[in-house]
């Protein structure tokens, strides 16, 4: 009786080289991202809390908590506000800035460098810089508003929830807007100039040219910029944490997750929460990734 040796699919030299070169990617991503993701998913169905003995199976209880607990729901709502405000500020401001940079010819390189700078700085330092501006006693914002007579007396900006949410969104948008500007500028520069000349000959006004040529043609770039802004705003952490700590007024869902996991040591609830945040981020980007992949596949 003979046994057939299991036959491995014969790989040619290219395939073996490809696997060898991709091996570090597989190892690192497998061990540090995909493995932990799977174990997160598995553990989220148990009660894992170092302060309590045992880790019984609890089914979807953590997910129910993550979607019904009042504190957690408030954090989801806060994140929703951040997303809305950040996307509006970044897209509006980013489009205006990109149109301006597209028009400007003298010194564009330096202006672009200045515009990109906030994106390059550590978010923590950004938050400290802005925290000093918002300082209730000695901050620039109170100083300027009082000097111009708009307000009287020092305002403690983060005492008011709505103001706090707006200010944190502004700081976040200050950091993320450069990405929108660059994506939109790239889109603007790919529009053929002839289109505008033809429109001008046909007597189209500047506003009509913007509505009927510019906006439709930068729509793909706009979609990418929107999805980036949304995903980053869903994951807002540093700005809110440095400017207002764990305060429930401005607590985003990511801060809530951090608190649940590392302060209250409810690890499995933290994992369920972070997986839900991941699903939200993935859902937003899925459209975009699939689309881009479809575009690049048939080359």
């Amino acid at each position, binding site marked *: 009786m003979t046994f057939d040796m299991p036959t491995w699919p014969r790989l040619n030299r290219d395939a073996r080289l490809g696997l060898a070169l991709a091996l570090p990617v597989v190892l690192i*991503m497998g061990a540090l991202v995909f493995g932990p993701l799977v174990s997160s998913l598995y553990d989220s169905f148990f009660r894992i809390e170092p302060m309590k003995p045992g880790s019984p199976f609890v089914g979807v209880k953590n997910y129910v908590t993550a979607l019904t607990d009042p504190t957690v729901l408030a954090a989801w709502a806060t994140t929703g506000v951040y997303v809305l405000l950040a996307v509006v500020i970044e897209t509006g401001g980013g489009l205006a800035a990109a149109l301006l940079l597209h028009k400007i010819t003298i010194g564009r390189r330096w202006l672009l460098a200045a515009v990109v700078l906030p994106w390059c700085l550590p978010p923590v330092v950004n938050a400290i810089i802005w925290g000093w501006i918002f300082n209730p006693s000695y901050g620039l914002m109170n100083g300027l508003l009082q000097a111009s007579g708009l307000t009287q007396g020092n305002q403690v900006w983060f005492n008011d929830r709505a103001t706090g949410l707006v200010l944190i969104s502004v700081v976040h948008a200050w950091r993320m807007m450069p990405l929108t500007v660059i994506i939109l500028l790239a889109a603007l520069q790919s529009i053929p100039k002839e289109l505008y000349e033809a429109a001008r000959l046909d007597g189209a006004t500047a506003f009509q040219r913007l509505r009927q040529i510019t906006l439709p043609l930068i729509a793909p770039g706009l979609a990418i910029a929107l999805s980036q802004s949304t995903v980053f705003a869903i994951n807002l952490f540093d700005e809110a944490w440095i400017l207002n700590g764990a305060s429930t007024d401005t607590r985003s869902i990511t801060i809530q997750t951090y608190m649940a996991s590392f302060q209250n040591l409810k690890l499995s609830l933290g994992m369920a929460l972070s997986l839900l945040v*991941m699903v939200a981020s993935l859902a937003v980007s899925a459209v975009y990734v699939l689309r881009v992949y479809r575009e690049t596949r048939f080359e």
Partner: protein
Amino acid sequence: MTRTTKRFLNNAALSLGAAVLLLWSLGPIYWSLVASLTPPNALISDNLHLWPLAPTWAHYAKLFGATSTSQGNEVQSVWPQFSKALANSIITALAATLVTVAIAAVGAWAFVRLKFPGRDALFIAVVATLAVPGFTVLIPLYRLMIAAGLIDTYTGVTLIYVSAFLPLALWLMRSVYQAMPLSLEEAAWIDGASKFYTLLRIVLPLAGPGLVACAILTFLSAWGQFMIPLVFSPSLATKPLTVLIPEFVTRNYVDYGLMNAAGIVAILPPILLVLFLNRFLVQGLMAGASK
């Protein structure tokens, strides 16, 4: 309206827009610089000055070794902590950049030029993690790192940075290689060069600008990281500036001058990168975001 007035108005509007954009982008940084140069007692005065009246290096001196007095007590210099955290930031950011760029440079080429089983699925899976928030894997990763004894070590932090920034680097390098003409490589293959030799000798030198863009993006991401070291760098053994600086807020006293001075030091490397290598950075962002 005549042509010249129209053009004048047009230019005036553009200049005004540029001024607003500059003020928005640089104003906050300027204000932090002012605070870092203002004497401590002037920082907490009621009068607003848009530039430091009597500039002082006192806050920077405190960072770099001088002792000071506050409310009659001598305050220890923060230099021992600050210097260690500065070194930690530099070491982890550079190590993460080197490893990430090296892996992405060869890995992305394999994804573009070689056919191997599972290639497309692997690439999609890796790129999809771009949308995965870093902290999703934080808890299992924390346990893994404890088990491996890598908490608070350069190796541990660097490995986590690499896993976090590799997807973007791969995405970027893939678009660089896709834009490269295949004919150059084919010519070398026909001459009998092996594919790996071609990668090292022909492809990588041509990919220079892409590699620089990739390195800048990775360095900036690692330099600015906060949440990863907040969890994985509990002590000064590996704690970077981003985690140390917010700790300058003590229980009953916030040293704004010191925090702003430390912040200015922490943003110097990014500022230098933008000043000298902005072209690569912008190209990288454009390729990374849109292609």
